[in-house]
């Protein structure tokens, strides 16, 4: 007989009460065909996946198809997932591949390499700085502190302003700010999913954030003036 102290508990190492929340636990449970683990993953990540998919394909039904294919891809590939990236990163990468293929069928191509001139646009309108003399490069029209930002930033109206500003961005910037700031993926994971370098990622993030800031500044100053 095997000595008792060999293993702590008999039976398979099933996820503990409440279900697994960490990657390793979820992957393990999924490999065993645990429906609850899959449902948890779907609930947690589908919104992210839909958001990303809709940046590659314009038709919402196609975006939903892409997400479904992604989940099928996740299930089919789960035995090969090695945990070298986080589960979320891995899933997003599957999605991006599926979405690119779907975009080709839709006749849209999205390339991240066309950084183009959006990498050179200034963060702030040059008119707001002195352009000559000893104060050259200093603010001539400096930004003013936003009044009660914590309340106003979370309002529905502000959210609409932010969403509109993000929608106006070139695709590469929109993807980057979505991953970094909405989905809260790390810089490393964003680079890995989009297949870009860290410096490029920061430029895109910078452009995207400065565009949203400018939109908020314009919105807040309008509100203040008309209030």
């Amino acid at each position, binding site marked *: 007989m095997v000595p008792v102290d060999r293993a702590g508990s008999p039976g398979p190492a099933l996820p503990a009460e409440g279900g697994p929340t960490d990657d390793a636990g979820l992957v393990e449970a999924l490999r065993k*065909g645990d*429906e609850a683990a*899959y*449902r948890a993953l*779907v*609930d947690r990540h*589908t*919104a*992210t996946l*839909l*958001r990303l998919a809709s940046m590659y394909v314009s038709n919402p039904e196609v975006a*939903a198809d892409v*997400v*479904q294919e992604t*989940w*099928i891809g996740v*299930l*089919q590939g789960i035995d090969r997932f090695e945990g070298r990236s986080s589960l979320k990163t891995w899933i997003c990468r599957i999605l991006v591949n599926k979405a690119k293929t779907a975009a080709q069928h839709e006749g849209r191509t999205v390339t991240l390499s066309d950084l183009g001139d959006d990498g050179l646009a*200034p*963060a*702030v309108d*040059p008119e707001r*700085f002195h352009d000559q003399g*000893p*104060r*050259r*490069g*200093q*603010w001539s029209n*400096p*930004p*003013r*502190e*936003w009044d009660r*930002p*914590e309340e106003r*930033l*979370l309002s529905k109206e*502000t*959210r609409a302003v*932010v*969403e509109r500003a*993000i929608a106006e961005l070139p695709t590469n910037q929109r993807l980057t*700010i979505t991953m970094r*700031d*909405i989905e*809260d993926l790390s*810089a490393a994971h964003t680079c890995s999913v989009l297949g870009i370098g*860290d410096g490029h990622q*920061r430029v895109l*993030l*910078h452009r995207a*954030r*400065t565009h*949203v*800031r400018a939109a*908020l*500044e314009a919105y807040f100053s309008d509100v203040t003036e008309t209030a």
Partner: protein
Amino acid sequence: MGRIARGQPGHVARAEPDRAELTCQELVELVSDYLEGALSSDDQHRFEAHLEGCDGCRAYLEQMRATILAVRGVTDADLDPAMRERFMDSFRDWRSLRDV
């Protein structure tokens, strides 16, 4: 924050920026790198030294921080139950094939 001292003992030259100092226009381009912790330590010191003496740039930095918070506030609606069922069906198909 005893950080200003480094490289520029005490004085904050506002009216005549010397070569080592950032201008406001330069600083706004470095804000994301600053927030990402991607500046060299020299540049980080220059950045922070400039902030010490510049209300406009401090306001700008705060606006960028607030912007990031506002973007984080854009969350999604709940998952459509019909869509979730569709994804669950994919799972059941997969599992039935796997169990064979």
